């Protein structure tokens, strides 16, 4: 990152190779849109280049990268209303030994996640899927670690409620399928 800060685009290419897939997954889970996720991933790396001088080496690089990703997502959300697409089967890696019932359960969970407010969804995505520790999430969002813990557990409760509502209400489920 030190080289990128000095405008080295080759070094930026190395960072891209290392982190773009994780960022894509973060944006996909945040937006539900494959094409928007590609655009947002590219945007993050442009911002890394432009804002290189704001990087503090004391901060873990991934925390700083996700802070930029978080800001990029917020900026884009202000401009666009997300056209959340139904996730196509090919857009997810097939887990080993998966069953149809399990696939449906996961698709429902994905929809429930998209029903949460973006800030709640982000806490769950960062902590559960992107592998960030509570301290890192606090650092990138600028909040106390204990606040992160409380919010993550409450967001999980809301996800549980959204998932239960979708599971038992076929009309709601049909409406979600049309979105």
């Amino acid at each position: 990152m030190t080289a990128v800060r000095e405008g080295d685009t080759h070094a930026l290419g190395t960072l891209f190779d290392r982190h773009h897939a994780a960022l894509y997954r973060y944006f996909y889970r945040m937006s539900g849109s494959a094409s928007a996720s590609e655009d947002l991933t590219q945007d993050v790396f442009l911002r890394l280049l432009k804002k290189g001088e704001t990087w503090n080496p004391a901060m873990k690089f991934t925390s700083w990268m996700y802070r930029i990703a978080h800001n990029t997502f917020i900026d884009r959300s202000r401009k666009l209303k997300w056209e959340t697409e139904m996730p196509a089967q090919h857009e997810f890696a097939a887990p080993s030994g998966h069953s149809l019932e399990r696939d449906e359960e996961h698709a429902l969970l994905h929809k429930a996640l998209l029903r949460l407010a973006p800030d709640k969804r982000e806490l769950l995505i960062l902590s559960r899927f992107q592998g960030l520790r509570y301290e890192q999430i606090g650092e990138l969002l600028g909040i106390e670690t204990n606040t992160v813990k409380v919010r993550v557990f409450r967001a999980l409760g809301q996800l549980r409620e959204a998932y239960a509502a979708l599971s038992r209400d076929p009309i709601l489920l049909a409406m979600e399928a049309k979105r």
Partner: protein
Amino acid sequence: MNTECSSLELQLADYLAGVPSAEVDAHLDVCEQCRASVALWSNMAAMPAPVAPRMRLQLPKPRNYWPLALAASALLAAGLGFYGGRASAPANDIASLRKEVRSLREVVALSLLDQQSASERLRGIRYSASVDASDPELAEALSHTLRADPSVDVRLAAADALRRFPQSTKSRESMWQILNADDSPLVQIAVIDLLSEDPRLPQLLNNSNIHPSVKEYVQAVLANPQKRGFQ
């Protein structure tokens, strides 16, 4: 959430992160809601990860607006000519103006296809539907997009848009090269649809770059050439 749950939120969050706690275990024995939350957390770990498409870093290119400006000037000039001389030859002027509008659409579509953002390129492909299918430059641009675009979504949309363009021998050869180079089974199927009447189609069954499920699709197309696309 009851008072006990609220007082244990920090420990419950740590528990999710893998920190064992006898106090939390005892709480989970009696609290159905928290137990369901913890179970859901475990279930989330088994969710399949979204597959990131093949991507490469795209740094911004200097924007090139001169083709748009040129087309706009041409349109303006044609419009002025139309109003100035409509008494003498209105039919010719209208035909000329229509031609200019078509060429402006073509320039806009080509310009969008060259954008850095995948959504903009998808917009360019949608826009290409309003352009005359006999335009070879646009067909070449779509063919280039199908061959080289880093986004699978954009490549699939380009293949779909190319259906209405007449195919030359050169464009067919280009499609064959794509089949040998593109590793996305979905793109391979879309290209096979474009080549469904090509006599060399059986050769694909021995091609190692072709995904096994795509080979099954080739066999289905060979058995019934009318049955194309996803059923």
